[in-house]
């Protein structure tokens, strides 16, 4: 009996096997999580978590087409070697080069002009009327394309680093980490951090499928915009319902707030306010 008795100290030494890998999901948002345990070169146990967004793409093919995929090679093709490279995909990206730019139709020009004049005026209902038409039409066009499967949704890797809830990814947010020049304070046309926050307008209560272009359409009549940031969910890639718009001039930001706060966009009442300076982490 004593010989089979295992002392706790021994079990600790022997039981150095890693926890088994686990795969969970895809959950309701289509995110699949794979947790793997492995040892690195130094013998340390490492936990690797991989998150992937799973999406199902349905493609309809003819029955005969599927059947033809099983055809046997014949003629010269049957004699092909692996290295023959009869078919290669070009490495160069060949663009569809446009020889002419599309012209705006008269109708669009007129509408755009209407919008501009309305924005300069002070009548709030006037703006809302003309804006609604244009933006609605644009959104419908996009949805139509999406329904036909031609326009891609906001495609980004699930772990893209846009995690700051309610804040902008800021230079030096990870102490000691490398900050690319484009993100360093004072980068880009002399646009300092302080100024960036000063003219930043926070837009909340946006609908989920609002895009950068929509916001640009909405805010550009007030003045030049330096940057638009829409917060996306890091797992699903859907918009989280708020965004920041940075104006070059603070008076433009102020005007935008006056005009658009409480403006009904896509059945939601927009809330537009000056962004609060970021709380220290």
């Amino acid at each position, binding site marked *: 009996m004593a010989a089979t008795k295992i002392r706790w100290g021994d079990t600790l030494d022997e039981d150095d096997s890693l926890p088994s890998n686990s795969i969970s999901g895809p959950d309701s948002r289509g995110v699949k999580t794979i947790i793997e345990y492995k040892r690195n070169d130094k013998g340390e146990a490492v936990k690797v978590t991989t998150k992937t967004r799973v999406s199902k793409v349905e493609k309809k*093919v*003819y029955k*005969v*087409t599927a059947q*033809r*995929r099983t*055809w*046997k*090679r*014949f*003629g*010269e*093709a*049957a004699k*092909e070697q692996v290295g023959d*490279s*009869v*078919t*290669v*995909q*070009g*490495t*160069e*990206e*060949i*663009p*569809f*080069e*446009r*020889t*002419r730019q*599309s*012209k705006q139709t008269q109708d669009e020009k007129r509408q755009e002009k209407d919008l501009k004049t309305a924005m300069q005026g002070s009548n709030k209902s006037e703006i809302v009327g003309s804006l609604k038409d244009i933006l609605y039409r644009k959104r419908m066009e996009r949805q139509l*394309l999406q329904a036909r499967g*031609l*326009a*891609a949704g906001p495609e980004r890797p699930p772990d893209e680093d846009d995690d700051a809830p309610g804040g902008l990814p800021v230079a030096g947010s990870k102490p000691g980490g490398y900050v690319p020049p484009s993100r360093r304070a004072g980068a880009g046309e002399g646009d300092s951090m302080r100024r960036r926050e000063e003219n930043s307008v926070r837009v909340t209560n946006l609908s989920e499928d609002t895009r950068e272009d929509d916001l640009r359409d909405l805010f550009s009549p007030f003045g030049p915009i330096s940057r638009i940031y829409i917060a996306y969910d890091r797992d699903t890639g859907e918009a989280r319902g708020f965004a920041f718009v940075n104006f070059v001039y603070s008076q433009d930001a102020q005007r935008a707030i006056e005009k658009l706060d409480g403006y009904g966009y896509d059945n939601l009442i927009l809330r537009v306010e000056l962004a609060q300076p970021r709380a220290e982490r």
Partner: protein
Amino acid sequence: MRPYLLKGHSRPLTQLKYNREGDLLFSCAKDHNPNLWYADDGTRIGTYVGHNGAVATCDVSLDSTRLLTGSADSSAKLWDVETGANLFTWKHKAPCKAVAFGLGDGLAAIATDPFMTTTPAIHLVRIAADEADQSADAMQVLAGFDKRTNRVAFTDVNATLISAGEDGFVRRWDVETGKLKLESKIHAGSIADLQMSTDGTHFVTASFDNMSKLVDTQTLEVLKTYATDRPANSAALSPIFDHVLIGGGQEASQVTTTSSRAGKFESRFFHKIFTEEFGSVRGHFGPINACAFSPDGRSFATGGEDGYIRLHHFDNDYLTARFF
């Protein structure tokens, strides 16, 4: 776009053809063996071995079981698409430059060149359901012209045959009687290609006179003219947009005299109605001899004098962009 480059031919391409579903691509070239490819990734399925001369033309039956080819070895051959077996050979006295299946695949046209003492003709033949019963005799011979025919196509539910040739004429023939019903000089130069629209109401031609034209099938009236500044060797109509794809370029014999950019070997896109050029896709380093749109309109293939086929799948921005 990152096109697939298909190097299955050792000599200039002559014609490209998609099947009805758009999953197979047939190519023929001045080497002796037409090729069959998967149209999505460009994998070669097979080659049809048997001709002993440049293959000028091919056509595939609607159900993708039979392939008809015409060659400079003065023969036209019927092939089994899946196995590459040669089912039947029509022996003529002159090179065959144009072939076409009729609707229902029971009828085909084979056009022969003027050669030595033979005069050019278009032979209409019956395609037997069982190749053992296949006859070499033509049911009708259309003649009465003196230049080579480059393209033939059936229309009006096989009642009419359309032919286009080196003399710049497009002709409408009565299939039943073999009589010429209508002819019209569409081009000043030789017509190199003729492709029907999906609904068959109009077709597009490509000619060495630097023009490509949209022509009404019934009246042979020119509806639109697309001016290119170099010979047009092939033209295709998009099945989903009002776009015309024209391939061509400086004549092969002139190519070495200028830089490759001056040769203008791009595939060019014209608007069907406004006749304005709106885009181009570069890639070939010789003139484009053949081009074809996939039946779903989302990809196209071009074949060049350089011996390459380039298989392009459009990016989304082509499908969504408003060009006009």
